[in-house]
């Protein structure tokens, strides 16, 4: 049974505005951290050169 099939009187969980704001802030922070990590890994690959791995892939 999908979400669309559920009877309308079943309970739905909703988030308050404050909860949504807090979650959005955390999600943005995680996204920025991951982006920074990707950039760092890319730069490090350039710095280390093509022989970064201990053996050929």
């Amino acid at each position, binding site marked *: 049974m999908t979400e669309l099939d559920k009877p*309308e*009187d*079943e*309970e*739905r*969980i*909703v*988030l*308050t505005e*404050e*909860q949504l704001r*807090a*979650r959005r*802030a*955390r*999600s943005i*922070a*995680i996204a920025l951290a991951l982006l920074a990590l990707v950039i*760092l*890994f890319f*730069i*490090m690959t350039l*710095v*280390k050169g093509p022989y970064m791995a201990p053996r050929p892939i």
Partner: protein
Amino acid sequence: MSLVTEGADYPGPAAAGAGVVYADVSMAGVGDYLALLKPRVMSLVVFTALAGLAVAPASIHPITAFTALLCIAVGAGASGALNMAYDADIDARMVRTSQRPVPKGKIRPGEALAFGITLAGFSVATLGLMVNWLAAGLLAFTIFFYAVIYTMWLKRSTPQNIVIGGAAGAFPPMIGWAAATGSLSLEPILLFAIIFFWTPPHFWALALYKSDDYARAGVPMLPVVHGDMTTRRQILLYTLLLVPLGIAPWALGFAGLLYGVTAIATGAIMLLLAWQVFRERRPTDAASRKLFAFSILYLFLLFAVLLVDNGWGGLIR
């Protein structure tokens, strides 16, 4: 980012509308998660690691150095998060720590634990892959030592907790050195020893004027278990060991005259303050507070001058 384990069963307030329930999800902000990392401790860790990395006799690309320091910083932050996850009960009972995110209810202990484990894993793996595995191994051991040996075992069981546990704070210069050279030698071990013997007078000075707080939380700090006089004597003894160790880098030839002069001058002040603490009696605590404050400046100055004296080492070549 909420690993709510009991949230599914949490009843929550029923909404006015039919069939709508408000979920018990995390209200923690980014600042709360950053507070978990103990930023002030992180900054000291990064600074001492930078000194170890800079004085090492090896060239290292600035980006690699930055990556190494970032991993060390995140690893230190992970240790802080793991500590806060485990010590939530103690932190709630102490004035000094009651405003931390976990005792305040902003972050659950399980969330802090998951956050700490994730950061620990990624920082060690990244350091190993990007720099070298000796540095990564030392970082992993440091995190384990602080989170398990100190936090879960020593802190609650022995008045020597911060003496042995202080080793965790002493590893960063060794990690920095290992990151630059891929090896260890006498010099990083000496830097380790300086921080190791600095830790007891630093923390016991704090414990002297916060002993009521520690007693309330049931933490067996030395003043709580063995009293003021024993603590004051131990502070003096450790400072007597610390000062020559602080001068040793100059005496052994891997730091210059500027460092030597700084180490001698600040070491003399540390000894004077430790002597004043030894002579002080409660309820007066001015000497303890002064020693605690100056001990931070002492360590900072030693490592700052070490950096400058070595011309920032292999960071700029």
